């Protein structure tokens, strides 16, 4: 368990050291192996990533706010997530659904993603989480009709 915490923390710290994240902190570590991380990156508000080392899961919590359950955007997001494992996605960016499990939850109109991994594969799962976040912001939200959504909920410029 400690090894998982170590490799996931190191992997995320590496993005901070390289200057990809604007900042990075380990904000809470519980005795049951859950560790909460926070970092600023592609949006004004910070991302919250939680490692459940005992369960071998990483959750990126509340990535997208104000998405009603079963709304068009909720559906599109789930389709997008599913399609990231498709053969049409270049191999180097494809989500490996043989190696990891991916699930999406909508709690109080906020979308979260959980990545399940095999013991010993936490580092790669952390990288996958970061790359998936990138695809969500630089692909799903960019290609879809979300200009007005981004202005309203992420404070991006109207211009």
């Amino acid at each position: 368990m400690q090894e998982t915490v170590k490799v996931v923390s190191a992997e995320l710290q590496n993005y901070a050291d390289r200057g990809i994240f604007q900042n990075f902190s380990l904000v809470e570590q519980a005795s049951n192996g859950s560790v909460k991380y926070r970092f600023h990156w592609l949006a004004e508000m910070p991302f919250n990533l939680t490692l459940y080392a005992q369960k071998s899961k990483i959750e990126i919590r509340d990535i997208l706010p104000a998405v009603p359950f079963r709304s068009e955007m909720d559906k599109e997001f789930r389709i997008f997530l599913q399609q990231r494992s498709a053969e049409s996605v270049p191999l180097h960016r494809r989500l490996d659904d043989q190696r990891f499990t991916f699930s999406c939850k909508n709690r109080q109109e906020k979308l979260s993603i959980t990545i399940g991994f095999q013991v010993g594969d936490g580092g790669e799962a952390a990288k996958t989480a970061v790359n998936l976040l990138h695809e969500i912001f630089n692909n799903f939200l960019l290609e879809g009709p979300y200009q007005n959504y981004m202005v309203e909920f992420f404070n991006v410029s109207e211009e």
Partner: protein
Amino acid sequence: MSKKEDAKKSKASSSAEQESVVSRRNFIKGTAIAGAGAATLMQSETSKAQEQDGPGIKIPEEIPRTLAEAAKPANFPMSGAEVFAKFCSDEGVAGFFCCPGNYNMINAIAAEGIPSYGGRCEGNMVSAADGFIRVTGEIAATSGTEGPGFTNMIMNIGAANAARSPLLVIASNKTIGEDDTEHGIQTAYQQSQTDGLKKWGKRMITPNRIYEYSAYAFRQLKTGVPKPVHLDFPGEISRARFEEPGELQYYYDKTRYRTESKAHPNPADITRAVEMIQRSSRPMIVASTGVFYDKAWEPLLRVAEKNDIAVVESAPQRGHFSDGHSLSASTGLDAIRSADLVILVGQYCMPSIGEFAFGPDARWIRIDPDASDIGRNVPIDLGIVSSEKAALEALEDALPSRTRQGWRDELASARKAFDDQSEEYYRLGLKYSADTESIHPAVIGRQLNDFLYNGDIDRQQTAVVSGGYGIGRYTRRYLRAYRPGQICNGAYQYGAIGPDIGYTVGVGAAVQNGIGPQAPYKGSPVIGITGDAGAAYSIMEFDTLGKYRIPAVMIVYNNNAWGVWTSGGGRGATRAQHMYLFQENLRYEKIAEALGCNGEYVTSPEQFTPALERGYKLAATEGISTLINCQGKKEFWTNEYPPSMPRHFAPGALAYYK
């Protein structure tokens, strides 16, 4: 155009033949005016406005006559203005755009033979100079009078600054003798007003240092990373009299006051760059502003082809790497997300992390002539201080030949996906147009693409000012650049939409004179694109287009509103919506007609290409510009019409931030 209108036009043309005055109806035919104004003025057709009662619109005989006058370069004894004008000429200033004011100076510059244009608003003339620079790579100058004229220039100087244009801003500034008195009118302290909008500036106060400070200005304009340089000339300077060279300080040739030498890369850095490129599976060069100004497009091509490195453009101008090349990623947007090594070359306006779509695991090399900027915003894995051309030549020498078939295949697949998406948008646009009895911007973009690149016109021929806000988010998708300086990216970084017609004047002047990369297409029509909000700022420059017979077709997307109108009603705002809207169905094309140009009104997809064909032909054969008013709907920016307002994507064909 209706048959009735055709008949009226024919009748008017016939009566024009009988006129003896120099007018738009009877004008110099095919007279190439070299030097002073460099406008090719041709016999015109009659505009609808001339069919009205009252005196017809005409070009006064003084315009062609004075444009045709031979240049008269100054020699001692000279005024301060003449010293400066001669200096500009010796430094190869390629174009000059002004409104009257700073009289001694603008007269002296015209007399030197620098192609000179006078327009209707100082700000638009700044943008004309900026547009000229963006597609030629050469220095252009702009001038306004003191106080009001100068302050009119500010927004446009800001846009040139954001684009890193080597723009020479000159403005008159009362007299030193009246400083602080408020004697008379138009007093203004200029230099503080361009703080943050220029590379360097100076209010001259010592007459015999005019030559010396001119050298300061051109050192700044011609070295390192360019930006506007602002000189203001009090009357004591421009009117000063110099009988012989000995009265001027530091009066010697440009080989003494500046150098053409450029920084070359450290060989160790090139070795490291080669190692990184060789380790990479999917390297991508971002060919930006510096590649164009350093005229480095040929070594860029050779480097890319030698090692199969993809290239994406991001700059205030496009075309220094052809969109038609198999290694181009400018329309292969999804491949940008796949790059594992990013090589920024001459990226003067730096994105922050997240502004470019590169992934979090990509490594970064930055090549830039300015060491002090390397590492800003984007952390680097390797920085190389060098001129862009020298670095690319060094890389070309050092890199082994290599084929990356997988990467090429991914690029091809990404370009196809982009084209497929564009076709899908076009199909949606046709449906939305039919549903609303208007024209959707995707239809404009797609038909423009067909006309410019898939018809009888050489696809490299037409330079385009890619402007507008909402319309730009669609037309950028369909525009292509196949040679350097083919696209002027209007809103680049500053996001100003108002200058678009000003840019079109400058780009048109650049093509009219065949400057730099525009030489093979000298005299060809240019296309401009803007929105109804943008057009309002600079539409009076249709007089300038008409007066100089700059052949242009300006597409104005008219959706009756500011592009950001959804911000006024979509978030529970009260009493706000009215501020975002205009009167509906305004007839901008009639303004062009009233200014001696041609107007077309388009309200459906079927009308657009014919209007474009007529406008282009009129521009090519008669030198008469056209405004095509395309009537759309503001609701196209809502989610009722997906993809509504497509979001910004950079780098590549859709980019305008960086």
